[in-house]
């Protein structure tokens, strides 16, 4: 297995674990942790897709500018993942705040106690 395949497989495995955890757990905090794991997996897959074998990070301190296009990996997925990490943190903070409010409202973090929006 190459480096790209290992990181892709790890990323996909994390997405699985996260989604399965979010679907099978009844506790809201466990669901939030599962979503965090899934979003880590998505970030890992995105960075792995931008990796080109044998190339270096897109920072031109040792790489000469003229040969940059032949020697660096794709910088665009890395910029996207930076954004995704920050937004992921925001989403997690919001979920935690809402979970706290739900707990204050019902005294419970079990999702089966919140049935108003169930179809």
């Amino acid at each position: 297995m190459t480096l790209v395949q290992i990181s892709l497989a790890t990323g996909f495995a994390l997405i699985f674990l996260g989604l399965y955890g979010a679907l099978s757990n009844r506790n809201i905090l466990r669901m939030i942790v599962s979503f965090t794991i899934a979003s880590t997996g998505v970030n890992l897959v995105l960075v792995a897709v931008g990796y080109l074998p044998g190339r270096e990070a897109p920072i031109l301190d040792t790489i000469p500018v003229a040969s940059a296009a032949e020697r660096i990996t794709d910088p665009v997925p890395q910029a996207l993942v930076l954004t995704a990490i920050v937004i992921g943190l925001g989403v997690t903070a919001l979920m935690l705040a809402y979970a706290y409010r739900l707990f204050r409202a019902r005294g419970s973090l079990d999702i089966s106690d919140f049935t108003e929006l169930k179809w």
Partner: protein
Amino acid sequence: MTTRMAIPLVLVALLGTVFFALFSSYTPDASLNLTASYYADQTVPETGAQNIVTAIIVTYRGLDTLGEVTVLFLTAAIVGLVLSQSKAPSAHAGAGGLPSGELLQTGARMLVPVILLFGAYVFINGHLTPGGGFQGGAIVASAMLLMLLADPAERFSHGLISKIESSAGLTYVILGLLGLLFAGGFLDNKILPLGTFGSIFSAGAIPLIYVLVGLKVGAEFSSILTSLEETEDAE
């Protein structure tokens, strides 16, 4: 009960086949695509930044970063709003908690300045080395977290945090508008001279913008942390 167990498994298995198809047929590119090679070739002549990812985030996609910072601000505001009704009274803050211990308190006193300095280093050098405003801001906020852990009764001034946050945001937008007036467009970094490639005062306005982003992100994360910390324990 069995369907409740089975449905997630079926969904995950369906997703698994999709992922397996993606995974098994994936071959990495041999060369950069058109966008990436444009960035690779043009970043240094156009922006003067060593770190191409920084150049993309701050200059080429500067408007998106402004939006991202706005999303973070909204998150901090909403977390504060949602949790504001359950704020612990400041008199018995950190209500009933055990003291955090000598080791943590002394360690925090020693480490907080170093962590703050490291955060500042990371966001000032964002155009030269890995890192930048978001990472540096997160490091600065981690110093705040350490202070909160060491002394749960401590209260940071929300006024100071929101002043830092709003003035950094305002200056960021003003720098963007200056780019519209004096250079090629909104958030263009050429309003300042590009300087010597590889030195700290180079890449035009990128270090300035990333310092502002770092302060803003650090203030937003700190405000989220304090909002979460100040909420009262439910009985």
